[in-house]
């Protein structure tokens, strides 16, 4: 019986992230449009976009290989699995112990690896420029991410997200300078990983500074739908990650019962809305930076992570 309910909760989680991801992106777009006094498309527009892409035919380049055709599914599956392992409305999900935070980051790395390869498959310059810049950004973001994980693990004594969330939700964590630094660093890494302003602009096409969009330029139809869906999921994943580690307020603890889960789910959607609003506000207020400024941006994230870790060593109470 316990196993059944565990499977149910895990299944609900997997469906929930799938259903909410396009809505979150639509919400961010809507807020961004409203902030610059445009009407903007409906928050449900991403669903319509996905359906439209699914109905369209795929135009494949003449020399595209099998790798180009399987990459959208591999990428989507890897990101979905990663998103399913991050606690959203409840901790202690059935498969949480399958992979800790390091493995979740590596799963996203697998997705990126295949996407970067697909960018090089057709042999156009746009794919190449996108792939080469994407791997550069990843090379800078991953060390920063590891130091953030390190900082969290020092505080919570675990890299297992459920344990971390349970620990953070307990009352005796309090406010800590090092956790604040880790939060800022994680937000910076999340902006870079999701290709948001100021690192990359998700709304542009055919601009020499774009990264992610250049890489997937050759994709169309259902393949593009899969990749777009993956990108929506990744944004949701990072926001859930920040939420469960730094703001585990009202998150349903394992085995807490349906009511607590329902409250957790409601609060989770509220958290997503707040995060989406802040993201839109930040993106409207900043300009995109030049590609070769990104190392400085991510270098700052790395330094913050390192400082947070060192502060923890200096005094356990920070």
């Amino acid at each position, binding site marked *: 019986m316990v196993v059944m309910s565990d499977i149910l909760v895990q299944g609900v989680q997997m469906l929930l992230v799938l259903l909410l991801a396009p809505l979150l992106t639509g919400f961010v777009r809507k807020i961004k449009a409203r902030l610059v006094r445009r009407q903007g498309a409906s928050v449900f527009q991403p669903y319509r976009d996905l359906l439209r892409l*699914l109905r369209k035919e795929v135009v494949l380049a003449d020399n595209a290989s099998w790798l180009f055709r399987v990459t959208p599914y591999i990428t989507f599956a890897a990101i979905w699995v990663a998103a399913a392992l991050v606690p959203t409305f409840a901790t202690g999900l059935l498969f949480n*112990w399958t992979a800790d935070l390091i493995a979740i980051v*590596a799963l996203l790395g697998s997705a990126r690896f295949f996407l970067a390869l697909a960018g090089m498959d057709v042999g156009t310059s746009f794919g190449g420029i996108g792939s080469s810049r994407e791997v550069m950004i*990843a090379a800078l973001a991953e060390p920063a991410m590891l*130091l953030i994980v390190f900082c969290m693990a020092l505080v919570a004594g675990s890299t*297992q997200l459920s344990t971390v969330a349970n620990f953070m939700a307990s009352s005796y964590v309090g406010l800590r300078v090092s956790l604040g630094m880790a939060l800022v660093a994680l937000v910076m890494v999340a902006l870079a990983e999701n290709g948001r302003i100021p690192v990359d602009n998700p709304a542009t096409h055919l601009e020499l500074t774009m990264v992610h969009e250049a890489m997937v330029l050759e994709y169309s139809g259902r393949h593009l739908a899969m990749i777009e869906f993956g990108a929506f999921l990744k944004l949701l994943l990072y926001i859930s990650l920040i939420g469960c580690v730094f703001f585990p307020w009202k998150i349903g603890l394992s085995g807490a019962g349906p009511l607590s889960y329902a409250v957790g789910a409601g609060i989770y959607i509220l958290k997503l809305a707040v995060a989406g609003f802040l993201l839109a506000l930040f993106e409207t207020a900043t300009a995109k930076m030049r590609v070769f400024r990104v190392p400085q941006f991510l270098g700052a994230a790395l330094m913050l*992570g390192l400082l947070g870790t060192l502060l923890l*060593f200096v005094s356990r109470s920070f």
Partner: protein
Amino acid sequence: MILAVVIPAVVLQMSCVAALLAIAAIALALSRSRRATAVVYGATLTICVAALFGSLRWLVGEMANFPANSSDVILPIGLPWLGAHFRLDALAAFFLVVVNLGGAAASLYGLGYGHHDPAPHRVLPFFPAFLAGMNLVVLADDAFSYLLCWEFMSLVSWALVMAHHREAGNARAGYVYLVMASFGTLALLLAFGLLAGPAGDYGFAAIRAAQHTPYVATLVLILMLLGAGSKAGLVPLHVWLPLAHPAAPSHVSALMSGVMTKVAIYGFIRVVFDLLGQPSWSASVIVLFLGGITAVMGILYAMMEQDLKRLLAYSTIENVGIIFVSLGLALAFQANGLKLPAALAFTAALFHVLNHSFFKSLLFFGAGAVLTATGERDMDKLGGLIHRMPLTSFVFLVGCVAISALPPFNGFVSEWLIFQAVLQSPQLPQWALKIMVPAVGALLALAAALAAACFVKAFGITFLGRPRSEAAETADEVDKYSLSAMFILAALCLLAGILPGPVIDALSPVTTEILGGRMPIQANEPWLSIVPIAESRSSYNGLLVLVFITISASLAVYFIHRFASHALRRGPAWGCGFSDPTPAAQYSGASFAQPIRRVFGTLVFRARDHVEMPAPGDIRPAHLRIELHDLVWEGIYAPLANAVGFSAGLLNRLQFLTIRRYLSLVFATLVTLLLVLAIWS
């Protein structure tokens, strides 16, 4: 009454070595006949498989129950008062598994690949002898035999490097290798001399029993880092490696990169962990620092490289760095008596040794297949091979994913274990280590991310895109033997990735023997997941990750094919209105590396891009020149070579003297020596 004759395990292993040497002798006799290739590689394959199963049985059967057990033999050769000691313990058994697995795979590959060799008589006798040499180094149990076998291994591998000695650059590679190998042996000789002490007992058992002063221990550590480190490819002693490994035939490159560097690491572990006794924590600082630098420098070099085999050789340097970081962590924990984290770090190092031997052999085999099919190692003349060589490209992709430390393959598991060991660093009492270990962890993460970038480049430029040369356009898939060797290794990469628990358990006798501690028994964990310390801290389950990815990908495919449009049209690639006129205008290796060259290279390689843009209206082509400096070579080796050349030039005058002057020189020397003797006493 039944007479049971039990043959000691070490005797079985030694007879395998003898058989390998016999094959080498037969190969010498046969080498010019046409069937020699099949005979030699077939026989080597059989012996290696036998030796592999022997050592594997010893490791997981015998040693799992009696970790302190060992099997000894003394042969009446070598130094008259010492004899030649050989011993099979858990550590040796593990490295024998690595050596013979690599040997078996390389022999299987050689069955097909060897037929393309223009001069098989230069390879065939040395190939089994090389394997015999590596087996012997691992089995040796006294300093004299160890050094003798080490030199044998070095010389035979030198002969293999020089197999195609007429090709440009190979003679230089062989020369640099020989110089560095001699230097390494000199360092080892001094290290063993210090260990044996004035009494001069060269048996490992006596060295292990003796007490070593901290001064001697530090000196031996540094000498081992120089000796074993130069063979393994630690920066800045790595210069020979990217020259020599690619120069050999590809299956030998695989052995040198995947296996011989591991034999060097074995030497380091044997001396520093086993013979020296309790380490000091300051030793670990040196090892951690060198390992971290090696990992990042190795992969940055690889990123800048256009030659596929040299790229792989540089990536070996990176992996050696990762292994040394892990060994450094084990030293740090062991010095502070933290048995469990030490066992974790040590297991991670051994696991990575095994993994690297899998995927590096696989990748070198793949590079060899590309070389066979196209005659090219230069990535900028390849491309589009995924269409012409689908099977090779598939296994090469598996190797690339595995080496980039991506789940669910094996490279990720060992790196994950290393990160778990890094996360144990708050337990260390020393401040220097507390601060250093997270920084080294960040270096490892940087190396892992750069490795992914590097192998996106290696696979993307070589196998994807459009063919950049005629040879790449007309390439054909390689033979069945080569393919089966690659597929077996690819399967092992996946297996070790999804079932890491049994591997960790199999390694526990080694950690028990060397460190006196072990990781928790993984076979007891539910669902085949691995748990380094406790489940509440961290756990990973590669099998479930694979199953989840498969299920969700299948679900996605099912729904797409059930509900979405099936229409598919082929068309020309979209070039934004300006299609690339020639495949040469595609992204090349150098252009793919440009962002990383700009971010890291300006510091590490003093990289500069010089663009010569003609004035508007001028029809001269524009030029881009990339300037890179190998600072290690220019800063250390070039001045050293100049100094040696200069002094040799001065001494050269002594060669052209008259008899009269030589006689007076002899006389002066004699008098001086006698004077010294007189004053000394």
